[in-house]
Protein backbone atom coordinates (compact mmCIF):
# COMPACT_ATOMS: atom_id res chain seq x y z
CA UNK A 1 0.00 0.00 0.00
CA UNK A 2 1.45 3.28 -1.07
CA UNK A 3 1.51 5.77 1.76
CA UNK A 4 -0.69 8.52 0.34
CA UNK A 5 0.92 11.30 2.34
CA UNK A 6 4.37 10.22 1.30
CA UNK A 7 3.31 10.06 -2.31
CA UNK A 8 1.83 13.54 -2.15
CA UNK A 9 4.93 15.12 -0.66
CA UNK A 10 7.25 13.25 -2.98
CA UNK A 11 5.30 14.48 -5.97
CA UNK A 12 5.03 18.03 -4.67
CA UNK A 13 8.70 18.37 -3.82
CA UNK A 14 10.04 16.70 -6.95
CA UNK A 15 7.51 18.56 -9.06
CA UNK A 16 8.34 22.01 -7.80
CA UNK A 17 12.02 21.28 -7.52
CA UNK A 18 11.90 20.17 -11.13
CA UNK A 19 10.15 23.37 -12.05
CA UNK A 20 12.78 25.46 -10.29
CA UNK A 21 15.66 23.54 -11.85
CA UNK A 22 14.06 23.78 -15.27
CA UNK A 23 13.80 27.53 -14.90
CA UNK A 24 17.41 27.76 -13.79
CA UNK A 25 18.72 25.63 -16.63
CA UNK A 26 16.61 27.46 -19.19
CA UNK A 27 17.75 30.82 -18.00
CA UNK A 28 21.33 29.64 -17.88
CA UNK A 29 21.30 28.53 -21.48
CA UNK A 30 19.35 31.42 -22.86
CA UNK A 31 21.71 33.94 -21.36
CA UNK A 32 25.24 34.39 -22.49
CA UNK A 33 26.30 35.58 -19.10
CA UNK A 34 24.90 32.51 -17.39
CA UNK A 35 22.68 32.77 -14.39
CA UNK A 36 23.35 35.16 -11.53
CA UNK A 37 22.93 33.90 -7.99
CA UNK A 38 20.00 36.17 -7.21
CA UNK A 39 18.10 34.65 -10.07
CA UNK A 40 18.61 31.26 -8.55
CA UNK A 41 17.29 32.54 -5.26
CA UNK A 42 14.35 34.12 -7.05
CA UNK A 43 13.39 30.95 -8.78
CA UNK A 44 13.73 29.03 -5.51
CA UNK A 45 11.47 31.42 -3.65
CA UNK A 46 9.00 31.31 -6.48
CA UNK A 47 8.99 27.52 -6.26
CA UNK A 48 8.44 27.67 -2.51
CA UNK A 49 5.54 30.08 -2.89
CA UNK A 50 3.92 27.78 -5.45
CA UNK A 51 4.45 24.80 -3.19
CA UNK A 52 2.88 26.64 -0.29
CA UNK A 53 -0.11 27.91 -2.22
CA UNK A 54 -0.86 24.55 -3.85
CA UNK A 55 -0.59 22.89 -0.46
CA UNK A 56 -3.06 25.39 0.95
CA UNK A 57 -5.32 24.86 -2.03
CA UNK A 58 -5.29 21.11 -1.47
CA UNK A 59 -6.06 21.63 2.19
CA UNK A 60 -9.20 23.59 1.40
CA UNK A 61 -10.23 21.26 -1.42
CA UNK A 62 -10.19 18.43 1.11
CA UNK A 63 -11.90 20.44 3.82
CA UNK A 64 -14.69 21.55 1.57
CA UNK A 65 -14.88 18.06 0.03
CA UNK A 66 -14.75 19.27 -3.55
CA UNK A 67 -13.60 15.83 -4.65
CA UNK A 68 -17.04 14.54 -3.87
CA UNK A 69 -18.76 16.95 -6.23
CA UNK A 70 -19.70 16.27 -9.78
CA UNK A 71 -17.18 17.52 -12.31
CA UNK A 72 -19.18 20.57 -13.51
CA UNK A 73 -19.92 21.69 -9.94
CA UNK A 74 -16.33 21.11 -8.99
CA UNK A 75 -15.03 23.15 -11.90
CA UNK A 76 -17.40 25.99 -11.01
CA UNK A 77 -15.62 26.30 -7.72
CA UNK A 78 -12.09 25.42 -8.71
CA UNK A 79 -11.65 27.73 -11.68
CA UNK A 80 -12.39 30.99 -9.90
CA UNK A 81 -10.39 29.82 -6.92
CA UNK A 82 -7.24 29.11 -8.85
CA UNK A 83 -7.64 32.33 -10.70
CA UNK A 84 -7.63 34.08 -7.36
CA UNK A 85 -4.68 32.01 -6.18
CA UNK A 86 -2.74 32.86 -9.33
CA UNK A 87 -3.11 36.54 -8.56
CA UNK A 88 -2.08 35.91 -4.97
CA UNK A 89 1.04 34.07 -6.08
CA UNK A 90 1.93 36.94 -8.35
CA UNK A 91 1.63 39.45 -5.56
CA UNK A 92 3.54 37.24 -3.16
CA UNK A 93 6.30 37.06 -5.71
CA UNK A 94 6.53 40.83 -6.06
CA UNK A 95 8.45 41.50 -2.84
CA UNK A 96 11.02 38.89 -3.84
CA UNK A 97 11.46 40.22 -7.31
CA UNK A 98 11.99 43.66 -5.87
CA UNK A 99 14.34 42.54 -3.13
CA UNK A 100 16.46 40.53 -5.54
CA UNK A 101 16.43 43.25 -8.16
CA UNK A 102 14.77 41.11 -10.72
CA UNK A 103 12.61 44.01 -11.66
CA UNK A 104 14.54 47.00 -12.71
CA UNK A 105 11.74 49.44 -12.13
CA UNK A 106 9.56 48.79 -9.11
CA UNK A 107 6.53 50.39 -10.61
CA UNK A 108 6.59 47.89 -13.43
CA UNK A 109 5.57 45.14 -11.11
CA UNK A 110 2.25 46.83 -10.52
CA UNK A 111 1.44 47.58 -14.13
CA UNK A 112 -1.91 46.02 -15.08
CA UNK A 113 -0.38 44.39 -18.10
CA UNK A 114 2.37 42.80 -15.99
CA UNK A 115 -0.15 41.64 -13.44
CA UNK A 116 -2.26 40.08 -16.18
CA UNK A 117 0.66 38.29 -17.80
CA UNK A 118 2.12 37.11 -14.53
CA UNK A 119 -1.20 35.92 -13.18
CA UNK A 120 -2.05 34.17 -16.42
CA UNK A 121 1.18 32.28 -16.19
CA UNK A 122 0.44 31.16 -12.66
CA UNK A 123 -3.15 30.44 -13.55
CA UNK A 124 -1.98 28.02 -16.19
CA UNK A 125 0.37 26.40 -13.71
CA UNK A 126 -2.35 26.11 -11.08
CA UNK A 127 -4.67 24.73 -13.70
CA UNK A 128 -2.12 22.10 -14.65
CA UNK A 129 -1.55 21.24 -11.01
CA UNK A 130 -5.28 20.93 -10.33
CA UNK A 131 -5.77 18.83 -13.42
CA UNK A 132 -3.15 16.44 -12.20
CA UNK A 133 -4.51 16.41 -8.67
CA UNK A 134 -8.15 15.85 -9.52
CA UNK A 135 -7.40 13.28 -12.22
CA UNK A 136 -5.28 11.29 -9.83
CA UNK A 137 -8.10 11.21 -7.28
CA UNK A 138 -10.76 10.27 -9.77
CA UNK A 139 -8.66 7.37 -10.98
CA UNK A 140 -7.90 6.25 -7.43
CA UNK A 141 -11.55 6.35 -6.58
CA UNK A 142 -12.53 4.35 -9.64
CA UNK A 143 -9.90 1.79 -8.70
CA UNK A 144 -11.30 1.57 -5.22
CA UNK A 145 -14.80 0.95 -6.53
CA UNK A 146 -13.45 -1.81 -8.77
CA UNK A 147 -11.74 -3.38 -5.79
CA UNK A 148 -14.93 -3.10 -3.85
CA UNK A 149 -16.82 -4.86 -6.61
CA UNK A 150 -14.19 -7.57 -6.82
CA UNK A 151 -14.42 -8.12 -3.08
CA UNK A 152 -18.16 -8.28 -3.22
CA UNK A 153 -18.01 -10.91 -5.93
CA UNK A 154 -15.51 -12.89 -3.94
CA UNK A 155 -17.74 -12.71 -0.90
CA UNK A 156 -20.71 -13.72 -2.98
CA UNK A 157 -18.84 -16.80 -4.10
CA UNK A 158 -17.78 -17.56 -0.57
CA UNK A 159 -21.29 -17.12 0.59
CA UNK A 160 -22.62 -19.39 -2.06
CA UNK A 161 -20.17 -22.00 -0.94
CA UNK A 162 -20.92 -21.42 2.69
CA UNK A 163 -24.66 -21.03 2.70
CA UNK A 164 -25.52 -24.18 0.93
CA UNK A 165 -23.60 -26.09 3.51
CA UNK A 166 -23.90 -29.58 2.11
CA UNK A 167 -23.00 -31.26 5.34
CA UNK A 168 -25.85 -29.63 7.14
CA UNK A 169 -28.30 -30.24 4.30
CA UNK A 170 -27.58 -33.94 3.83
CA UNK A 171 -27.60 -34.58 7.54
CA UNK A 172 -30.92 -32.79 7.78
CA UNK A 173 -32.36 -34.84 4.93
CA UNK A 174 -31.16 -38.02 6.55
CA UNK A 175 -32.83 -37.10 9.82
CA UNK A 176 -36.04 -36.15 8.04
CA UNK A 177 -36.14 -39.46 6.23
CA UNK A 178 -35.72 -41.30 9.49
CA UNK A 179 -38.52 -39.28 11.07
CA UNK A 180 -41.02 -40.17 8.36
CA UNK A 181 -41.89 -43.42 10.09
CA UNK A 182 -41.24 -42.44 13.64
CA UNK A 183 -42.97 -39.06 13.72
CA UNK A 184 -44.58 -38.05 10.43
CA UNK A 185 -45.74 -34.67 11.73
CA UNK A 186 -42.33 -33.73 12.93
CA UNK A 187 -40.82 -34.78 9.65
CA UNK A 188 -43.27 -32.52 7.80
CA UNK A 189 -42.32 -29.59 9.99
CA UNK A 190 -38.69 -30.34 9.42
CA UNK A 191 -39.23 -30.31 5.68
CA UNK A 192 -40.81 -26.87 6.06
CA UNK A 193 -37.84 -25.56 8.01
CA UNK A 194 -35.38 -26.89 5.46
CA UNK A 195 -37.39 -25.56 2.56
CA UNK A 196 -37.44 -22.12 4.20
CA UNK A 197 -33.69 -22.08 4.64
CA UNK A 198 -33.04 -23.20 1.08
CA UNK A 199 -35.42 -20.62 -0.31
CA UNK A 200 -33.72 -17.87 1.66
CA UNK A 201 -30.29 -18.92 0.56
CA UNK A 202 -31.33 -18.95 -3.08
CA UNK A 203 -32.78 -15.45 -2.94
CA UNK A 204 -29.76 -14.15 -1.11
CA UNK A 205 -28.99 -10.68 -2.36
CA UNK A 206 -25.56 -9.37 -3.14
CA UNK A 207 -25.14 -6.29 -1.01
CA UNK A 208 -28.46 -6.66 0.62
CA UNK A 209 -29.35 -6.39 4.21
CA UNK A 210 -32.30 -8.16 5.64
CA UNK A 211 -34.69 -7.36 8.44
CA UNK A 212 -33.57 -8.71 11.76
CA UNK A 213 -36.82 -10.58 12.22
CA UNK A 214 -36.32 -12.42 8.93
CA UNK A 215 -32.82 -13.41 9.92
CA UNK A 216 -34.09 -14.61 13.27
CA UNK A 217 -36.58 -16.84 11.46
CA UNK A 218 -33.74 -18.38 9.48
CA UNK A 219 -31.80 -19.00 12.68
CA UNK A 220 -34.82 -20.61 14.33
CA UNK A 221 -35.41 -22.87 11.33
CA UNK A 222 -31.80 -23.86 11.40
CA UNK A 223 -31.85 -24.59 15.12
CA UNK A 224 -35.02 -26.67 14.79
CA UNK A 225 -33.31 -28.90 12.26
CA UNK A 226 -30.16 -29.24 14.30
CA UNK A 227 -32.26 -30.11 17.34
CA UNK A 228 -33.70 -33.03 15.43
CA UNK A 229 -30.24 -34.27 14.67
CA UNK A 230 -28.67 -33.77 18.07
CA UNK A 231 -31.79 -34.31 20.16
CA UNK A 232 -30.97 -33.99 23.83
CA UNK A 233 -27.38 -33.10 23.06
CA UNK A 234 -28.32 -29.63 21.87
CA UNK A 235 -29.94 -27.13 24.16
CA UNK A 236 -30.94 -23.79 22.67
CA UNK A 237 -31.68 -20.53 24.42
CA UNK A 238 -32.88 -17.36 22.77
CA UNK A 239 -32.89 -13.99 24.49
CA UNK A 240 -33.85 -11.36 21.96
CA UNK A 241 -34.15 -7.65 22.65
CA UNK A 242 -37.50 -6.52 21.16
CA UNK A 243 -35.80 -3.39 19.79
CA UNK A 244 -33.71 -5.60 17.53
CA UNK A 245 -36.54 -5.55 14.99
CA UNK A 246 -35.55 -2.00 14.08
CA UNK A 247 -32.28 -3.20 12.64
CA UNK A 248 -31.16 -4.51 9.29
CA UNK A 249 -28.52 -7.24 9.33
CA UNK A 250 -26.46 -9.04 6.71
CA UNK A 251 -28.45 -12.17 5.72
CA UNK A 252 -27.20 -15.50 7.04
CA UNK A 253 -24.57 -13.83 9.18
CA UNK A 254 -26.10 -14.75 12.51
CA UNK A 255 -26.98 -18.19 11.12
CA UNK A 256 -23.39 -18.74 10.05
CA UNK A 257 -22.08 -17.79 13.48
CA UNK A 258 -24.60 -20.04 15.22
CA UNK A 259 -23.73 -22.87 12.86
CA UNK A 260 -20.07 -22.28 13.58
CA UNK A 261 -20.73 -22.52 17.28
CA UNK A 262 -22.52 -25.83 16.84
CA UNK A 263 -20.10 -27.28 14.32
CA UNK A 264 -16.91 -26.46 16.16
CA UNK A 265 -18.14 -26.45 19.69
CA UNK A 266 -21.12 -28.57 20.52
CA UNK A 267 -20.85 -31.29 17.91
CA UNK A 268 -17.34 -32.01 19.16
CA UNK A 269 -18.49 -32.73 22.71
CA UNK A 270 -19.72 -36.23 23.47
CA UNK A 271 -22.25 -34.90 25.95
CA UNK A 272 -23.31 -32.08 23.63
CA UNK A 273 -23.91 -28.57 24.95
CA UNK A 274 -25.82 -25.33 24.81
CA UNK A 275 -26.13 -22.62 22.22
CA UNK A 276 -27.32 -19.29 23.49
CA UNK A 277 -28.29 -16.38 21.25
CA UNK A 278 -28.74 -12.98 22.85
CA UNK A 279 -29.30 -9.56 21.34
CA UNK A 280 -29.07 -6.18 22.99
CA UNK A 281 -29.86 -2.75 21.64
CA UNK A 282 -27.56 -0.09 23.02
CA UNK A 283 -27.54 3.48 21.71
CA UNK A 284 -28.46 2.76 18.10
CA UNK A 285 -26.18 -0.24 17.94
CA UNK A 286 -27.20 -3.86 17.84
CA UNK A 287 -25.13 -6.27 19.90
CA UNK A 288 -25.43 -9.88 18.85
CA UNK A 289 -23.94 -12.38 21.28
CA UNK A 290 -23.65 -16.07 20.59
CA UNK A 291 -22.43 -18.34 23.34
CA UNK A 292 -21.72 -21.98 22.67
CA UNK A 293 -20.29 -24.81 24.75
CA UNK A 294 -16.74 -25.53 23.81
CA UNK A 295 -13.40 -23.80 23.86
CA UNK A 296 -11.13 -22.04 21.45
CA UNK A 297 -7.73 -23.64 21.40
CA UNK A 298 -4.74 -21.42 20.75
CA UNK A 299 -7.07 -18.60 19.85
CA UNK A 300 -8.62 -20.52 17.00
CA UNK A 301 -10.88 -23.45 16.53
CA UNK A 302 -9.36 -26.72 15.45
CA UNK A 303 -10.59 -28.12 12.19
CA UNK A 304 -9.63 -28.66 8.61
CA UNK A 305 -11.70 -25.95 7.01
CA UNK A 306 -12.10 -23.69 9.95
CA UNK A 307 -11.94 -20.01 9.47
CA UNK A 308 -13.81 -19.51 6.22
CA UNK A 309 -17.07 -18.77 7.98
CA UNK A 310 -15.41 -16.27 10.29
CA UNK A 311 -13.29 -14.73 7.56
CA UNK A 312 -16.40 -14.29 5.47
CA UNK A 313 -18.18 -12.63 8.37
CA UNK A 314 -15.38 -10.16 9.09
CA UNK A 315 -15.03 -9.35 5.42
CA UNK A 316 -18.72 -8.63 5.06
CA UNK A 317 -18.75 -6.48 8.16
CA UNK A 318 -15.81 -4.43 6.93
CA UNK A 319 -17.35 -3.89 3.53
CA UNK A 320 -20.79 -3.02 4.76
CA UNK A 321 -19.93 -0.95 7.80
CA UNK A 322 -16.25 -0.05 7.51
CA UNK A 323 -14.90 0.48 11.00
CA UNK A 324 -18.31 0.99 12.52
CA UNK A 325 -18.96 -2.68 13.13
CA UNK A 326 -16.98 -4.95 15.40
CA UNK A 327 -16.42 -8.67 15.75
CA UNK A 328 -14.80 -10.73 18.44
CA UNK A 329 -14.58 -14.39 19.37
CA UNK A 330 -13.10 -15.40 22.72
CA UNK A 331 -13.28 -18.00 25.44
CA UNK A 332 -15.68 -16.42 27.87
CA UNK A 333 -14.81 -18.95 30.54
CA UNK A 334 -13.74 -22.57 30.70
CA UNK A 335 -16.94 -23.84 29.21
CA UNK A 336 -18.18 -21.30 26.74
CA UNK A 337 -17.04 -19.47 23.66
CA UNK A 338 -18.47 -16.01 23.10
CA UNK A 339 -18.89 -14.58 19.63
CA UNK A 340 -19.99 -10.98 19.57
CA UNK A 341 -20.94 -8.81 16.61
CA UNK A 342 -21.87 -5.17 17.04
CA UNK A 343 -23.44 -3.39 14.13
CA UNK A 344 -24.67 0.18 13.78
CA UNK A 345 -28.09 1.17 12.60
CA UNK A 346 -28.11 1.21 8.83
CA UNK A 347 -28.51 4.34 6.82
Amino acid at each position, binding site marked *: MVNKKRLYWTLQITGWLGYVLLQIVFYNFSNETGIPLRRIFFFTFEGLICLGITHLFRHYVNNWKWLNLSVPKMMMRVLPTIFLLAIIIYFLRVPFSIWLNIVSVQRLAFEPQQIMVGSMFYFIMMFGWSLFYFTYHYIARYNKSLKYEASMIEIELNNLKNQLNPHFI*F*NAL*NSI*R*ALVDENPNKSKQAINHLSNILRNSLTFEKKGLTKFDDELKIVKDYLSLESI*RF*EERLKTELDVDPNSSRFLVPPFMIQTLVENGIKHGISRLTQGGTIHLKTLVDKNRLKIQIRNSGQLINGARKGK*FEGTGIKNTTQRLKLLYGDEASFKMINENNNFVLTEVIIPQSI
Partner: protein
Amino acid sequence: MKALIIDDERLARKELMKLLEEHPSIEIVGEAMNADEAIQMVNDLNPDLLFLDIQMPGKTGFQLLEELDAVPFVVFTTAYDEFALKAFEVNALDYLLKPIQAERLSETISKILEKEKNKATAVRNADKKLGLNDQVFVKDGDRCWFVSLSNVRLFESDGNYIKVYFDNNRPMIHKSLNALDEKLDERAFFRASRKHIINLSWVEGIEQWFNGGLMVKLKGGDKVEVSRRQAAKFKDMMSL
Protein backbone atom coordinates in the same frame (compact mmCIF):
# COMPACT_ATOMS: atom_id res chain seq x y z
CA MET B 1 -21.94 -61.37 9.59
CA LYS B 2 -22.07 -59.58 12.89
CA ALA B 3 -22.18 -55.81 12.53
CA LEU B 4 -21.89 -52.82 14.81
CA ILE B 5 -23.37 -49.40 13.96
CA ILE B 6 -21.37 -46.45 15.24
CA ASP B 7 -22.95 -43.00 14.82
CA ASP B 8 -23.61 -40.21 17.30
CA GLU B 9 -27.04 -39.43 15.80
CA ARG B 10 -29.87 -41.71 16.90
CA LEU B 11 -31.91 -41.06 13.78
CA ALA B 12 -28.96 -41.91 11.54
CA ARG B 13 -28.49 -45.22 13.35
CA LYS B 14 -32.20 -45.90 13.08
CA GLU B 15 -32.19 -45.21 9.34
CA LEU B 16 -29.32 -47.60 8.75
CA MET B 17 -30.90 -50.30 10.88
CA LYS B 18 -34.06 -50.00 8.84
CA LEU B 19 -32.13 -50.40 5.60
CA LEU B 20 -30.23 -53.39 6.93
CA GLU B 21 -33.48 -55.21 7.61
CA GLU B 22 -33.37 -56.06 3.92
CA HIS B 23 -30.09 -57.88 4.41
CA PRO B 24 -30.51 -60.98 6.56
CA SER B 25 -26.86 -61.88 6.08
CA ILE B 26 -25.98 -58.91 8.29
CA GLU B 27 -26.90 -59.18 11.95
CA ILE B 28 -26.67 -56.01 14.04
CA VAL B 29 -25.19 -56.89 17.38
CA GLY B 30 -24.97 -53.40 18.80
CA GLU B 31 -25.05 -49.62 18.43
CA ALA B 32 -22.48 -47.18 19.73
CA MET B 33 -22.78 -43.42 20.11
CA ASN B 34 -19.12 -42.49 20.25
CA ALA B 35 -15.62 -43.90 19.91
CA ASP B 36 -15.17 -44.94 23.52
CA GLU B 37 -18.43 -46.85 23.59
CA ALA B 38 -17.50 -48.39 20.28
CA ILE B 39 -14.10 -49.61 21.44
CA GLN B 40 -15.73 -51.31 24.41
CA MET B 41 -18.31 -52.97 22.22
CA VAL B 42 -15.80 -54.14 19.63
CA ASN B 43 -13.78 -55.80 22.35
CA ASP B 44 -16.83 -57.39 23.94
CA LEU B 45 -18.86 -58.42 20.94
CA ASN B 46 -16.20 -59.12 18.31
CA PRO B 47 -18.14 -57.88 15.28
CA ASP B 48 -17.06 -58.76 11.73
CA LEU B 49 -18.20 -55.46 10.27
CA LEU B 50 -18.42 -51.84 11.43
CA PHE B 51 -20.61 -49.11 9.99
CA LEU B 52 -18.65 -46.12 11.13
CA ASP B 53 -19.63 -42.45 10.96
CA ILE B 54 -16.57 -40.41 10.26
CA GLN B 55 -17.69 -37.27 12.14
CA MET B 56 -18.26 -37.96 15.76
CA PRO B 57 -17.71 -35.90 18.87
CA GLY B 58 -14.56 -36.63 20.83
CA LYS B 59 -12.53 -39.06 18.76
CA THR B 60 -13.01 -39.29 14.99
CA GLY B 61 -13.70 -42.55 13.19
CA PHE B 62 -10.05 -42.82 12.16
CA GLN B 63 -8.82 -42.31 15.69
CA LEU B 64 -11.13 -45.06 16.87
CA LEU B 65 -9.67 -47.51 14.37
CA GLU B 66 -6.13 -46.64 15.37
CA GLU B 67 -6.95 -47.59 18.94
CA LEU B 68 -8.23 -51.01 18.07
CA ASP B 69 -5.81 -53.89 17.79
CA ALA B 70 -7.37 -56.03 15.11
CA VAL B 71 -9.99 -54.30 13.00
CA PRO B 72 -12.93 -55.91 11.29
CA PHE B 73 -14.29 -54.82 7.91
CA VAL B 74 -15.26 -51.17 7.96
CA VAL B 75 -17.81 -49.21 5.92
CA PHE B 76 -17.55 -45.47 6.58
CA THR B 77 -20.59 -43.20 6.49
CA THR B 78 -20.73 -39.44 6.06
CA ALA B 79 -23.26 -36.79 5.04
CA TYR B 80 -20.71 -34.68 3.25
CA ASP B 81 -17.17 -33.89 4.19
CA GLU B 82 -14.74 -32.84 1.50
CA PHE B 83 -11.78 -33.90 3.52
CA ALA B 84 -13.17 -37.30 4.44
CA LEU B 85 -14.38 -37.99 0.91
CA LYS B 86 -10.94 -37.28 -0.45
CA ALA B 87 -9.42 -39.65 2.11
CA PHE B 88 -11.88 -42.36 1.16
CA GLU B 89 -11.21 -42.00 -2.54
CA VAL B 90 -7.45 -41.80 -2.23
CA ASN B 91 -7.28 -44.85 0.00
CA ALA B 92 -9.96 -46.85 -1.79
CA LEU B 93 -12.04 -47.25 1.35
CA ASP B 94 -15.62 -48.42 1.38
CA TYR B 95 -17.99 -45.61 2.23
CA LEU B 96 -21.65 -44.63 1.99
CA LEU B 97 -23.14 -41.16 1.71
CA LYS B 98 -26.03 -40.20 3.95
CA PRO B 99 -28.96 -40.36 3.24
CA ILE B 100 -27.94 -43.88 2.28
CA GLN B 101 -29.34 -45.28 -0.94
CA ALA B 102 -30.52 -48.85 -0.72
CA GLU B 103 -28.74 -49.88 -3.94
CA ARG B 104 -25.42 -48.49 -2.82
CA LEU B 105 -25.77 -50.31 0.48
CA SER B 106 -26.50 -53.58 -1.33
CA GLU B 107 -23.46 -53.18 -3.56
CA THR B 108 -21.20 -52.50 -0.60
CA ILE B 109 -22.52 -55.44 1.38
CA SER B 110 -21.99 -57.79 -1.57
CA LYS B 111 -18.43 -56.57 -1.81
CA ILE B 112 -17.81 -57.19 1.87
CA LEU B 113 -19.36 -60.65 1.79
CA GLU B 114 -17.07 -61.48 -1.11
CA LYS B 115 -14.04 -60.30 0.84
CA GLU B 116 -15.12 -62.39 3.78
CA LYS B 117 -15.24 -65.54 1.69
CA ASN B 118 -11.75 -64.92 0.36
CA LYS B 119 -10.31 -64.52 3.80
CA ALA B 120 -8.64 -67.77 4.77
CA THR B 121 -10.69 -69.35 7.48
CA ALA B 122 -8.67 -69.91 10.60
CA VAL B 123 -9.40 -70.66 14.15
CA ARG B 124 -9.72 -67.60 16.25
CA ASN B 125 -7.16 -67.64 19.02
CA ALA B 126 -8.64 -68.30 22.39
CA ASP B 127 -6.36 -65.76 23.93
CA LYS B 128 -7.29 -63.16 21.34
CA LYS B 129 -3.78 -62.57 20.06
CA LEU B 130 -3.34 -61.05 16.63
CA GLY B 131 -2.52 -63.65 14.01
CA LEU B 132 -1.91 -63.74 10.30
CA ASN B 133 -5.61 -63.73 9.61
CA ASP B 134 -6.28 -60.45 11.32
CA GLN B 135 -6.12 -57.06 9.73
CA VAL B 136 -4.97 -53.84 11.27
CA PHE B 137 -5.65 -50.20 10.47
CA VAL B 138 -2.59 -48.15 9.66
CA LYS B 139 -2.66 -44.40 9.13
CA ASP B 140 0.26 -42.17 8.25
CA GLY B 141 -0.57 -38.58 7.38
CA ASP B 142 -3.15 -38.55 4.62
CA ARG B 143 -2.75 -42.19 3.69
CA CYS B 144 -4.35 -45.10 5.46
CA TRP B 145 -4.66 -48.83 4.90
CA PHE B 146 -6.38 -51.92 6.13
CA VAL B 147 -3.54 -54.40 6.12
CA SER B 148 -3.80 -58.10 6.64
CA LEU B 149 -1.06 -59.16 9.05
CA SER B 150 -0.06 -61.92 6.66
CA ASN B 151 1.19 -59.13 4.39
CA VAL B 152 3.28 -57.44 7.04
CA ARG B 153 6.74 -58.87 6.90
CA LEU B 154 8.47 -56.66 9.44
CA PHE B 155 7.86 -54.21 12.28
CA GLU B 156 10.73 -51.85 13.03
CA SER B 157 10.81 -49.47 15.96
CA ASP B 158 11.76 -45.86 15.34
CA GLY B 159 11.68 -43.72 18.44
CA ASN B 160 8.09 -43.65 19.69
CA TYR B 161 6.85 -45.04 16.43
CA ILE B 162 6.82 -48.33 14.59
CA LYS B 163 7.52 -48.67 10.88
CA VAL B 164 5.18 -51.21 9.31
CA TYR B 165 6.67 -52.99 6.30
CA PHE B 166 4.15 -54.26 3.78
CA ASP B 167 4.14 -54.22 -0.01
CA ASN B 168 6.13 -51.14 -0.97
CA ASN B 169 5.01 -49.14 2.02
CA ARG B 170 6.53 -48.35 5.34
CA PRO B 171 4.03 -46.15 7.17
CA MET B 172 4.62 -45.23 10.79
CA ILE B 173 2.19 -45.84 13.59
CA HIS B 174 2.33 -44.35 17.04
CA LYS B 175 2.72 -47.41 19.19
CA SER B 176 5.46 -49.03 21.21
CA LEU B 177 7.09 -52.18 19.94
CA ASN B 178 6.85 -53.83 23.34
CA ALA B 179 3.11 -53.25 23.49
CA LEU B 180 2.68 -54.60 19.99
CA ASP B 181 4.85 -57.58 20.78
CA GLU B 182 2.56 -58.61 23.59
CA LYS B 183 -0.48 -58.50 21.35
CA LEU B 184 0.92 -60.50 18.49
CA ASP B 185 0.66 -64.25 18.26
CA GLU B 186 4.17 -65.49 18.97
CA ARG B 187 3.75 -68.43 16.65
CA ALA B 188 3.43 -66.04 13.74
CA PHE B 189 5.56 -63.08 14.80
CA PHE B 190 8.96 -63.22 16.40
CA ARG B 191 10.79 -60.52 18.34
CA ALA B 192 14.15 -60.68 16.62
CA SER B 193 15.78 -57.93 18.63
CA ARG B 194 14.98 -54.78 20.55
CA LYS B 195 14.28 -53.09 17.28
CA HIS B 196 12.55 -55.69 15.15
CA ILE B 197 9.61 -58.05 15.02
CA ILE B 198 9.54 -60.35 12.02
CA ASN B 199 6.78 -62.35 10.36
CA LEU B 200 8.01 -65.92 10.46
CA SER B 201 6.18 -66.87 7.27
CA TRP B 202 8.34 -64.37 5.38
CA VAL B 203 11.67 -65.89 6.40
CA GLU B 204 13.61 -66.97 3.37
CA GLY B 205 17.12 -67.61 4.60
CA ILE B 206 19.17 -67.71 7.79
CA GLU B 207 22.90 -67.43 8.33
CA GLN B 208 25.22 -67.18 11.27
CA TRP B 209 26.20 -63.71 12.33
CA PHE B 210 28.55 -61.98 14.74
CA ASN B 211 28.38 -62.45 18.45
CA GLY B 212 26.38 -65.63 18.23
CA GLY B 213 23.55 -63.84 16.49
CA LEU B 214 21.83 -64.62 13.23
CA MET B 215 21.14 -62.72 10.02
CA VAL B 216 17.68 -63.49 8.67
CA LYS B 217 16.74 -62.76 5.12
CA LEU B 218 13.08 -62.04 4.40
CA LYS B 219 11.24 -62.53 1.15
CA GLY B 220 11.49 -59.25 -0.65
CA GLY B 221 15.04 -58.58 0.34
CA ASP B 222 14.97 -57.12 3.85
CA LYS B 223 17.67 -58.43 6.16
CA VAL B 224 17.16 -58.47 9.88
CA GLU B 225 19.60 -59.24 12.59
CA VAL B 226 18.52 -61.55 15.37
CA SER B 227 20.23 -60.72 18.62
CA ARG B 228 22.27 -63.39 20.41
CA ARG B 229 19.77 -63.43 23.19
CA GLN B 230 16.93 -64.21 20.85
CA ALA B 231 18.91 -66.49 18.57
CA ALA B 232 18.42 -69.54 20.72
CA LYS B 233 14.69 -68.99 20.93
CA PHE B 234 14.60 -68.44 17.21
CA LYS B 235 16.33 -71.65 16.46
CA ASP B 236 13.78 -73.41 18.59
CA MET B 237 10.91 -71.78 16.77
CA MET B 238 12.25 -72.71 13.39
CA SER B 239 13.13 -76.13 14.77
CA LEU B 240 16.64 -76.03 13.57
